[in-house]
């Protein structure tokens, strides 16, 4: 969380994995998610450049910055001049795409397209070299292979997103044309059925992304509607990535810090105990602040007792967390809140942060209701206090104590002409 990749700890993270609830640099992202078939399915997206802690949902073309839901609302929801900025949805990916594919997925991310293509080609060549060197199981098969599906499904999500986004968005939504992937990706050998990665592709609006040729390399699968679930489940953190890319090119990020398998195993073994304690800590309701979190951390056996005390928390109570919870709490907020609901934890998507739209809409509705009953006229709240005030002695209109000098006594008035 924060400023460093969660895995290596010393590079700036670029993408956010919703399943792992982790911010990763590109090389660690590739390492982690090529480990097995299940991790390849994880959906990753860009990090928000403002808060560096949540997945970016939209990209503001005017400000040229990728924003998470919170920062987007903060930046665009309040001021009327900003609310008309054009914003494009940012796509997610899963599997192990190469840098060329990522650059086509996020064309704004790299520098301008024409020089970007040439650099991407170079990088693609370099990537293949690194691929040969690496003995990891993923190869060119990493990307989506499945055919175009569910254009109707995409259309539905388009409509949903239209409704959600509100006035700042264009009215029309463009569904990206899906094309068959290039040959290099069509290698089903060695890839089991369960490992077909999906690329989620919410529709993108805005002139720059309407061109289809940018998406040659990508076969968009059915829209990943799990996006909503994960987004609500997991807290978020991210770093800005543009600086990284402008300095070194994406390939530098891929090649640096290749964690060997041994390292990750060692780290996994060491972290197993620590993580189990950490997870027990995180299971307590996300509402708890750092102090109580520490107290639970210190006593593992009390963890079960803590659960009983916390199960009644509702999702709305999480809104108190936002700025205060630690990074670890934030990550596991989704999981912990689910567990503590007391309902079947996996079925309904967990409501997690205060910026979730239902919490906000509730607050807005309450405000509007109260607004109707506002009265600015002179209004007496307590009749008894008015009665007392009417008989008090005054000096120049101000109340005075009983024994003090006064020039107006309402009970004993003399008429002057």
């Amino acid at each position: 969380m924060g400023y460093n990749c969660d895995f290596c700890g010393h590079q700036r993270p670029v993408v956010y994995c919703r399943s792992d609830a982790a911010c990763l640099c590109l090389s660690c992202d590739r390492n982690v998610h090529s480990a097995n078939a299940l991790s390849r399915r994880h959906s990753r997206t860009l990090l928000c450049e403002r808060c560096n802690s949540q997945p970016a949902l939209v990209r503001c073309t005017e400000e040229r910055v990728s924003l998470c839901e919170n920062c987007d609302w903060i930046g665009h929801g309040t001021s009327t001049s900003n609310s008309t900025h054009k914003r494009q949805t940012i796509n997610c990916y899963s599997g192990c795409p190469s840098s060329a594919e990522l650059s086509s997925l996020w064309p704004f991310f790299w520098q301008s397209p024409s020089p970007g293509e040439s650099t991407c080609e170079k990088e693609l060549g370099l990537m293949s070299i690194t691929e040969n060197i690496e003995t990891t199981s993923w190869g060119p098969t990493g990307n989506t292979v499945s055919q175009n599906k569910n254009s109707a499904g995409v259309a539905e999500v388009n409509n949903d997103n239209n409704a959600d986004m509100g006035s700042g968005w264009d009215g029309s939504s463009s569904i990206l044309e899906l094309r068959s992937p290039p040959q290099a990706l069509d290698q089903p050998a060695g890839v089991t059925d369960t490992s077909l990665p999906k690329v989620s592709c919410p529709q993108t609006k805005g002139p720059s992304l309407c061109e289809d040729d940018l998406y040659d390399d990508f076969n968009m699968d059915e829209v990943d509607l799990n996006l909503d679930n994960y987004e609500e489940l997991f807290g978020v953190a991210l770093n800005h990535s543009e600086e990284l890319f402008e300095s070194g090119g994406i390939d530098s990020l891929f090649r640096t810090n290749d964690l060997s398998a041994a390292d990750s195993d060692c780290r996994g073994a060491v972290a197993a105990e620590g993580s189990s304690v950490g997870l027990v800590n995180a299971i307590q309701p996300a509402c708890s602040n750092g102090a109580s979190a520490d107290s639970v951390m210190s006593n593992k056996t009390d963890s079960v007792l803590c659960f009983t005390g916390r199960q009644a928390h509702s999702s709305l109570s999480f809104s108190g967390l936002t700025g205060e919870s630690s990074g670890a709490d934030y990550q596991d907020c989704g999981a912990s809140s689910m567990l503590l609901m007391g309902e079947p934890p996996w079925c309904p998507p967990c409501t997690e942060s205060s910026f979730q739209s239902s919490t906000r809409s509730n607050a807005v509705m309450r405000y509007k209701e109260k607004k109707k009953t506002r009265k600015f006229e002179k209004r007496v709240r307590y009749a008894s206090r008015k009665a007392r005030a009417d008989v008090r002695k005054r000096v120049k209109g101000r109340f005075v104590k009983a024994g003090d000098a006064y020039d107006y006594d309402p009970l004993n008035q003399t008429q002057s002409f």
Partner: protein
Amino acid sequence: MCKGLEQGGNRSSSCLKQGFSSGLVNCELCNSRASLYCQADDAYLCRKCDKWVHQANFLALRHIRCFLCSTCQSLTQRYLIGASHEVMLPTM
């Protein structure tokens, strides 16, 4: 949710619910009977595959997995964290 018994429904007499009408759920990797569900991965796994998958790196180790009732394979209140830390959430 299937309460079963404390140990995830060892005795079938107390487990009446049938979670899935289509039959039992298989582990996604090896197709044997699934005994865990990982919500982060959205995957049903058997014990062995779960161990293999989630010990790959420490990020996967953080996933919280839910035990499935051994009879009806619905979710229980037992959860597995890390390598081998089991947690039982009390029901209200």
